[in-house]
C-alpha cells in the first residue's frame, strides 16, 4: 500500500481514523436497539430483526477496521514527527496516535452488540 505523502491527505485519513469507528458503533447501537424495540412492541411490523442486526454488525465492524488501518497508516507515515511538534504535522500525529486505541474498543463493542442481539430469541424478557 502506498503511503500518501501530502499533509491534507494524511489529515483526511486521520480524521477518518478518529471518527469512523465511534460513528459506526453509534449507528449500529441505535439501529439495532430500534429494530428490537420495533419488533417487541404492539406495533410489531412483523419484521425479524436478526438479519438486520447481523448486517449492521458486519458493516460497522468493517468500518471500524478501516478506521484503525487509516490511523495506523498516518501514525507510521508521520513516524519522524513528535507528538508535541508544530502543527499541522504534530497535531495530526497526536490525533492519529490517540486513534490507535479506537479499533480494539469499538470492534469489541460492535461484535458484542451484534452477537449479543441475535444470541437469544428477539423478544424474550430478561
Amino acid at each position, binding site marked *: 500500500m502506498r503511503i500518501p505523502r501530502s499533509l491534507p491527505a494524511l489529515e483526511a485519513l486521520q480524521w477518518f481514523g478518529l471518527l469512523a469507528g465511534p460513528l459506526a458503533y453509534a449507528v449500529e447501537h441505535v439501529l439495532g436497539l*430500534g429494530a428490537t*424495540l*420495533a419488533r417487541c*412492541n*404492539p*406495533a410489531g411490523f412483523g419484521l425479524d430483526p436478526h438479519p438486520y442486526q447481523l448486517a449492521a454488525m458486519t458493516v460497522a465492524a468493517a468500518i471500524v477496521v478501516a478506521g484503525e488501518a487509516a490511523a495506523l497508516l498516518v501514525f507510521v507515515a508521520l513516524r519522524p514527527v513528535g507528538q508535541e511538534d*508544530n502543527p499541522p504535522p504534530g497535531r495530526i500525529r497526536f490525533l492519529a496516535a490517540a486513534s490507535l486505541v479506537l479499533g480494539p474498543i469499538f470492534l469489541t463493542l460492535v461484535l458484542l452488540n451484534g452477537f449479543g442481539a441475535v444470541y437469544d430469541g428477539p423478544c424474550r424478557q430478561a
Partner: protein
Amino acid sequence: MNVFAVPARRSRARGWWGMALFAATEATLFGTIFGTYVYLRFKAVHWPPDGIASPSITIPLVLTGVLLATSAPMQLASAAARSGRARRAQALLLLALVVQAGYFAMQLQRYADDVQAHPPQLSAYTSITQLMVGADHFHVFVGLLLNLFLLAKLMDGRVTAYRRTGVQAAALYWHVVNALTVVVVLLQLSPSL
C-alpha cells in the same frame, strides 16, 4: 517558531461557534422529541388511534418547501455581511423575513385549528404530535425575532464585526431550524405517507 508571522486567515468567529453549539443542543432536543414520537408509535397498534383522521399531506409539504427556500436569502445575506455590504444584507434579511412571517402566520392558523380539532389531551398521539409541531413553530418564531433584531441593528448602514457574526449566526440558526422542520413534517405526516 514565530507564530505571529502566519498570514491572517478568516476562520469562523466565536459568535458563530456559540450559535453552532446552541443549534447542536437544540437539534438534540428535537432528536429526543423524534425518538419519543417513534417510541410511542411502537407502543400503539393503531397510529393515529381510532377516531382520529390521518393528517392531510399537500399543504404542509408546500409550506415546508417555502420555508426551506428561505435558507437561500439567509445564506446570501450572510455572504453580503461578510463582504461588508450592509444594505444588501438588509434587503435579503427583509426578503427572508417576509416569507418566513407569511409561513408562520399560515402555520399558526392551521395549528390553532388542529389543536381545536385534536386537543393534545385526547391521547398520546395528539400529545406528542402537537408538542412536536408546536416546538417547531416556536423555533420559527424565535428566528423571526432574531431577523427583526438584525434588521434593526443594520439600520445605520454599517457592518461591524459584531453584526457580521450576528448575521452569519442567524443564517446558521435558520438552516438548522429549516432542516428540523423537514423532519418534523415528515414524522407528522408519516401516518399518511
